[in-house]
């Protein structure tokens, strides 16, 4: 199920502005890859290019290759809508559909794609997704309530449940805990740890401890100055990045000695 992604020479643009330059990276299946770096260095931009969400922004474009299991996601015959079914995404701010109930939010991937499914099968899918997101016990008695009636942390887990309900192979998470309290954060970190056995996970975070706790490999992005493109400075096993990075800038950033 989980798949491997190889990125080569990826440049990412907003109109004529080059936001990210020549990224080469391999993302291992069934592992957690963390992306860290200062604000504005292009982590979100890079992450969104992995499931072709980047091109949703008017004028945005990408050059280079993102190969998932031998298939270039940016190949001319590839349908971006299909790519997104294989590469799911969780956003920084929880964004459940406000007009839908908790149940419908989880079922949204199936329903919106007009996939007909027997009620019993759908019920099972919703339950297993909510269990997978560690939310089932909290909401099983109120599946008909609006998704927006949950707390922020619960909403974020609802969004994770919604993302895993379409059974993607890869799950991208852009600062999924930045709006959450420490307890919800821990719950989501536990969840990431469990999900790792089924999915390939890429997570952007500003929290060094979080990167150290949950990830197997860590990539450090940096930017030379405003207006310059962001670059992948180094990427290695998380332990190595945090104990003995090979680039000075990485060490400075991790230890907080960053200008």
């Amino acid at each position, binding site marked *: 199920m989980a798949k491997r992604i190889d990125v080569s020479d990826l440049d990412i643009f907003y109109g004529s502005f080059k936001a990210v330059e020549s990224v080469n990276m391999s993302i291992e299946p069934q592992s957690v890859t963390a992306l860290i770096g200062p604000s504005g260095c292009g982590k979100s931009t890079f992450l969104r290019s992995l499931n072709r*969400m980047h091109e949703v922004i008017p004028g945005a474009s990408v050059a280079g290759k993102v190969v998932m299991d031998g298939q270039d996601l940016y190949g001319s015959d590839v349908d971006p809508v299909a790519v*997104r079914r294989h590469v799911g995404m969780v956003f920084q701010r929880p964004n459940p559909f406000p*007009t*839908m*109930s908790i149940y419908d939010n989880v079922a949204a*991937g199936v329903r919106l794609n007009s996939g007909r499914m027997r009620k019993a099968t759908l019920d099972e899918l919703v339950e297993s997704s909510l269990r997978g997101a560690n939310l089932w016990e909290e909401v099983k008695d109120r599946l008909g*309530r609006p998704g927006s009636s949950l707390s922020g942390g619960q909403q974020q887990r609802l969004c994770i449940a919604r*993302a895993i309900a379409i059974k993607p192979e890869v799950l991208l998470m852009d600062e999924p805990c930045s709006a959450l309290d420490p307890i919800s954060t821990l719950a989501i970190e536990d969840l990431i740890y469990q999900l790792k056995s089924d999915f390939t996970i890429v997570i952007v975070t500003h929290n060094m401890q979080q990167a150290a706790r949950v990830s197997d490999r860590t990539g450090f992005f940096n930017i030379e100055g405003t207006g310059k493109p962001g670059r992948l400075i180094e990427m290695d096993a998380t332990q190595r990045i945090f104990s003995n990075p090979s680039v000075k800038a990485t060490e400075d950033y991790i230890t907080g000695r960053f200008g």
Partner: protein
Amino acid sequence: MTSTTVTPPDRKRVQNSLTSGMLPRWVPPAIVAGILAVGLAAGLLFDVNLMLAAAFAVVGVGLVLTVVSRQVEGARRAKDRLVTVVVTSAFVLALLPLVSLLITVVQNGIERFDGEFLTQTMRGVLGEGGGAYHAIVGTLLITAAAAVISVPIGIMCAVYLVEYGRGRLARAVTLLVDVMTGIPSIVAGLFAFAMFAIFFGPSVRFGIGGAVALSVLMVPVVVRSSEEMLKLVPNELREASYALGVSKSRTVVKVVLRTAAAGIATGVTLAVARVIGETAPLLIIAGSTTRLNADLFEGRMSSLPIFTYYSYTIPGVPPEFGVDRAWAAALTLFVIVMLLNLVARAISRYFSLNSR
């Protein structure tokens, strides 16, 4: 010096910096009552103009309250009181014509607003009796047809502008919609007449022509209001949908339109209410008749505004029956618009609470 308390120099009666003088609750109503009493007394003694008296009363209340409040409560609260008086009187001023209109229409119209009026036509009626059944049916049919034509066009146009439109074409469409908003209703009627006259000759009169003329007026209103509602849908919801592997068209239909549905429903009702009382275009293209015609595509069709107009201008002999019918028809129109607003509320509540 250990004290860090700052005492405002202009307020002497205050004990510390957080509390200040406060007018007792009864003071503002008492001032209003006092001034009203003075005004009433003056009105009884001398013969004064009502409007003038009201204006003086408002100014008086504002002045007295501000001065008193300034003495007791300080400058900031005095300003607050003054602005409260101004805002309240502006509100009342805006409401007065509306209430007066409502009262006049109900007073004059209620007499003939009866079962006969709602179920009979004017066929063969010269003096007493008769009703506006044919006009009610005509208004409902023409307006419904106008809505059927313009709501899909308007919503699709708004979807295009918000979700797809880029560059020159979108700007052109926006400009055209703006221009359309300013079209005088008589011109819309002439347009419909000129268009249908090409095919059916200059004596053409039918309901659907009226519906087309009304759509010309309705489309820009629907586009504008739907556009605003669609813009309110947060981009995050679109992205959430895309990220689930949902295509753009399905996202627009099932997420964006669904989220904006409550607002769009309200906008559509307002647009209907805007055109349901149009007289000029219907005068030209739908014409007028005394009997029931429920066929939009054939023959003259009466409607409530036209019925009102003719009942008033050509009341027959003796004239009071026609005038009464005119008022009753105006009241009927009022009631229909009220009902429409209720329906809109129900719809928007259904869409916004509904989560099954």
